[in-house]
C-alpha cells in the first residue's frame, strides 16, 4: 500500500492583482472541471503484491491521478480519478483491477 504523493503537484501562487479587470484570468488549481471522481463507474484498485513498480500506469494516466512516490511506488488519487481504465488495460502484470463503484 502506498499513499498519494501530494508533493508532485506544482501549484504556484500567482499575483494577478490589477489584471483581472482587463483579462479573464484563471489560476491553477485542482478540480477545474469539477469533482471528476463523480464520473467514475469503475474504480481501479492496485494489488501491491503484483506491482513491479514499472511506472507504466503512472506515465499512461491521462489525468495525473496516479502519483509516483520517491521509491517508485504508485498510488491512485481517488478524489479525481475518472475511472477510464487505461492503467488496468496497460498494466503488464495485471496488478490493477477495475471494481464496480457502489
Amino acid at each position: 500500500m502506498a499513499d498519494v504523493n501530494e508533493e508532485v503537484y506544482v501549484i504556484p501562487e500567482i499575483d494577478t492583482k490589477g489584471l483581472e479587470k482587463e483579462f479573464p484570468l484563471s489560476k491553477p488549481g485542482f478540480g477545474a472541471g469539477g469533482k471528476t471522481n463523480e464520473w467514475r463507474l469503475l474504480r481501479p484498485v492496485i494489488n501491491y503484491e503484483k506491482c513491479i513498480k514499472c511506472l507504466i500506469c503512472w506515465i499512461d494516466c491521462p489525468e495525473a491521478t496516479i502519483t509516483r512516490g520517491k521509491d517508485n511506488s504508485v498510488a491512485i488519487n481517488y478524489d479525481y480519478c475518472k475511472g477510464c481504465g487505461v492503467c488496468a488495460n496497460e498494466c503488464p502484470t495485471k496488478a490493477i483491477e477495475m471494481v464496480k463503484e457502489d
Partner: protein
Amino acid sequence: MLLRDVKFEEKWLPGNAACPGCGLSLGLRLLTKAIEKPVVVIPASCASVVQGAWPKSSASFPLLNIAMAGAGAAASGIANAYEMLGKEGTVVAWAGDGGTADIGLQALSGAAERGENIIFVMYDNEAYMNTGIQRSSSTPHGAWTTTTPEGKREFKKDVAAIMLVHNLEYVATASVSYPVDFIEKLKKAEAHKGTKFIQLYSPCPPGWRLDASKTIEVGKLAVETGAWILYEYENGKLTISPISSRFREKKARRPLIDYLSLQGRFAGISQQDIAKLEAEIDRKWEFLSKFE
C-alpha cells in the same frame, strides 16, 4: 531516456474537464514533463475546454487561449516578446487537427516561413471532436463522423509532410501511446532554433467510438499495423523512429483489421475501403522512404 528518468512533477492538474481516457489530456501532461518552462498557446479546440471553468484552470503553466485560426500568429508574438523582454520560456502552440490542418494552416505556414522560435504541436484526434465529431481534413478514409455518416470518402491530409517541405530544422510525428518517445522528441525540438513541428497521434474515445481504457492500446496498434508511422526529420535528414522501423516490411505489420475493429467509427467499413486504406499505408511508407 528511460521511463524512470521522467520528472515526478505534475503541472497538468487532476480534475480537468477532459473525457475519461482522453489522449489530448495525456499529451498535455507529457508536454509539461518534457519542457521545463512551457508557455502554451491554444486555439479553439478540445484543449481550450479541458482546462476547466474560470476562475480555475488545470494548467499550472502560462497559457493563452486564442481564436481558432491564430495559434501560429499568437505563438510568434509571444516568442518575440519573450525574447525582447529576456524572459525564459519555450513557446508551444498546441492545436488540434482542425486548428492545424484546416483553419490554422496559414498562420502555421506563415510562422514557419518567418522561422519564429516556436514548437507547434498538432494533437491529431482526426476530427472536430469539441463541436461534435465533424470530419476534418485529417480524418482518415472510411471513418464515420457526424458529417460523414457513410464513412469519409477522401484521404487524410498529411500535415507533417507539408511542414517537411517548409524546410524546418525539426519535424516529427509522435504518439501518446509511446510517451518516452514523445518526450524525447519534444526535448530535441526545444534544442533547435526556428519553427519546430510535431504531429501527435491522440486517440479520442468518444469520437472514435472506442472504449476509454483502449486509448493507449489503439495507438500501439496504429503503429504496429503501419497506419501511423513515427519518424523525425532533423537538419534535412529523415529517420524512421526505432519503434516504427520494425514495421517497414509489410510482412512484419499486423493486419489492419486489428486496428480498425477496435474502433466503432470503422464499424461499417467495406472490404474495398479497407483495401484502399492498406494501399494508402503502402504509399505513405514509400513516400517517406524517398526522403531518407
